[in-house]
């Protein structure tokens, strides 16, 4: 462990000691904290963190986030009440007054982890921490050390959860740097179906570290549609970890949208643990200013006949930086694996930069693994064509960026979410208001 990490873990030590040791969660937390101390924070010498410098995080002292907010503060993030089951967490804590769980299908459990761990800990105990790797990921270990609250969703066998679950994590920001460790646990039993949207937002401006960990356990033949939307303050540090474990013939689609944050790292681990699984991961990153967004995906094809698709797009302006690293592991007996990876990048300024890397570890011989990456600027010929039809240069550029980026939004099945994200995207583009409503 580096000296810096020592100092940091000492600040976290105090916070850890302040936790309630009587909580049924505490045993798991202790394991997490122990592992966190063993691992220490990574540096750029660590292969997996070569392109992302987390020094700004390790040199900041974070306090636990606290405070409350009004309904108005969450409206930029919400979908209409009737269209989803809404769970809101403020500073990591469930806010019942801002949430609207609505009516759930029989047997479905949608609760805060704090609540369920008190009332029926047995229900979550076998799953919590079962697919999030504290062994390898220090931020997951850190999250685990501080699990207090979060979302628990259980969709029983054969149940179709009709409406999406929308979970919103809001942190109130101010002069002091604050930290939250949101946790999400989703158990989709055999032949069930669910849609989950995770939204991260801020109330006010300031520095924070948001360190969420999501675990999705996908039963045989279950279908999961998952969205993660990062819309925090541009001073926020955000290190997330999505962990998916798929059983036979299950189907998972996860979309990652990164708009906010100063330094964002999205870890994604997907284990295809049985035959016939489909996994699709789409991403869109829009960076400007000095934003840094790193998407680190790892897909483990552990069994034969599974397909995985990764399709990530990045648009970077100003001095922003992006990283895409897609690791595909194919186990020796995972024959007939079909894995396709695409990383498409649009750089809008000379100073913006992207690092894109496929990494293939293939130990089976009858597999199809392809990867492709493009890095480009706005096509001059297209710009001229639009201008030659009377559209001014800024609007023409905006239109072209929008066209590039919107492909990943256009396929969102939830209409309200799609419209909302189109708006968020346009807000980020120069003169985007010109295009509002017109598309």
């Amino acid at each position: 462990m580096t000296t810096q990490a020592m100092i940091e873990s000492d600040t976290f030590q105090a916070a850890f000691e302040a936790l309630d040791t009587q909580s049924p969660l505490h045993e798991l937390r202790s394991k997490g904290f122990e592992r966190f101390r063993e691992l220490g924070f990574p540096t750029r010498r660590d292969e997996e963190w070569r392109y992302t410098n987390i020094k700004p995080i390790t040199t900041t002292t974070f306090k636990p986030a606290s405070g409350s907010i009004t309904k108005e503060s969450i409206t930029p993030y919400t979908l209409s009440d009737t269209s989803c089951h809404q769970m809101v967490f403020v500073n990591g804590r469930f806010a019942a007054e801002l949430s609207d769980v609505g009516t759930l299908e029989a047997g479905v459990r949608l609760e805060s982890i704090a609540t369920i761990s008190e009332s029926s800990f047995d229900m979550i105990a076998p799953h919590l921490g079962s697919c999030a790797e504290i062994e390898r990921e220090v931020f997951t270990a850190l999250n685990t050390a501080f699990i207090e609250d979060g979302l628990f969703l259980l969709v029983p066998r054969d149940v179709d959860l009709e409406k999406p679950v929308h979970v919103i994590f809001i942190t109130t920001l101010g002069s002091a740097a604050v930290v939250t460790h949101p946790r999400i646990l989703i158990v989709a039993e055999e032949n069930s179906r669910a849609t989950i949207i995770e939204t991260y937002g801020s109330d006010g401006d300031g520095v924070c570290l948001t360190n969420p960990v999501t675990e999705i356990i996908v039963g045989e033949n279950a279908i999961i549609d998952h969205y993660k939307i990062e819309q925090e303050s541009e001073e926020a540090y955000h290190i997330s970890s999505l962990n998916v474990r798929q059983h036979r013939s299950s189907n998972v689609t996860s979309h990652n949208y990164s708009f906010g944050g100063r330094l964002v790292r999205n870890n994604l681990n997907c284990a295809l643990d049985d035959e016939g699984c489909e996994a699709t991961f789409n991403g869109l990153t829009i960076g400007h200013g000095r934003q840094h967004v790193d998407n680190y995906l790892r897909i483990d094809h552990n069994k034969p006949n599974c397909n995985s698709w990764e399709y990530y797009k990045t648009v970077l302006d100003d001095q922003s930086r992006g990283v895409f690293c897609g690791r595909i592991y194919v186990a020796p007996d995972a024959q007939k694996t079909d894995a396709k990876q695409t990383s498409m990048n649009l750089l809008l300024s000379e100073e913006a930069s992207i690092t894109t890397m496929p990494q293939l570890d293939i130990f089976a011989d009858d597999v199809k693994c392809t990867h492709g990456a493009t890095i480009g600027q706005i096509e001059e010929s297209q710009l001229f064509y639009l201008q030659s039809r009377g559209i001014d240069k800024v609007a023409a550029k905006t239109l072209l960026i929008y066209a590039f980026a919107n492909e990943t939004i256009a396929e969102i099945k939830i209409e309200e979410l799609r419209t909302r994200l189109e708006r968020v995207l346009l807000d980020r583009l120069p003169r985007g208001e010109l295009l509002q409503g017109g598309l």
Partner: protein
Amino acid sequence: MTMLEIRNLHASIEGKEILKGIDLVVNAGEVHSIMGPNGSGKSTLARVLAGEACYEVTEGEILFKGKNLLDLEPDERAREGVFMAFQYPVEVPGVSTKYFLKASVNAMRKHRGLDELDAFDFLELIKEKLKLVHMDESLLDRAVNEGFSGGEKKRAEIFQMAMLDPCLGVLDETDSGLDIDALRIVAEGVNKLRGPDRSFILITHYQRLLNYVVPDFVHVLLDGRIVRSGGKELALELEENGYSFINGEINEPVSV
């Protein structure tokens, strides 16, 4: 009224001079045809008129309705009323043709001090202009020019021209690669748009288009210069004899 006046225009690309002193006057209502062998600079002239940035104008000037065209950005030129139908229309994936047209039409209207069209009036306008080129509305649901056949692209250019109502239409080989039916449709479209306030420059290799759209003047462009100008008969002459018969006269350009 003089629509366009080009004086001693020299233009180069990547340091290579392509246009070597072009003089051309186009009055309102006139149709001029420019012919010339491959590589003689026809598209360069069209693109310089439209304002493509990669061409450098090293000498000369272009006046459009009395304004110095070279001072204007491509979009400003378009709003002033210059329209170029591209020899190779550009595909713009992800941008819906309808949205693009609406943005374009409204940019023009705003410039002319008119209100923006609402969705209803816009669709009416589309329907009316589609008829002109016998184009199917479903094409407009696709991305701009994406997956259009060669002929569809050319027709779409004429359709766009009709939508934008320009003062000067510069058609760069809009007839090339069209079958005879499509050629007739394109020619008919141009003829319907002809009028006392609108001028055309038709760049073509073939006399055939000129059977349908009869030009007032024909110019021969050779190696960056207009080496010969005449009436519509000149096109027939070229069709029969090729450009070789002009080569001998290069040093004595005939003026109209």
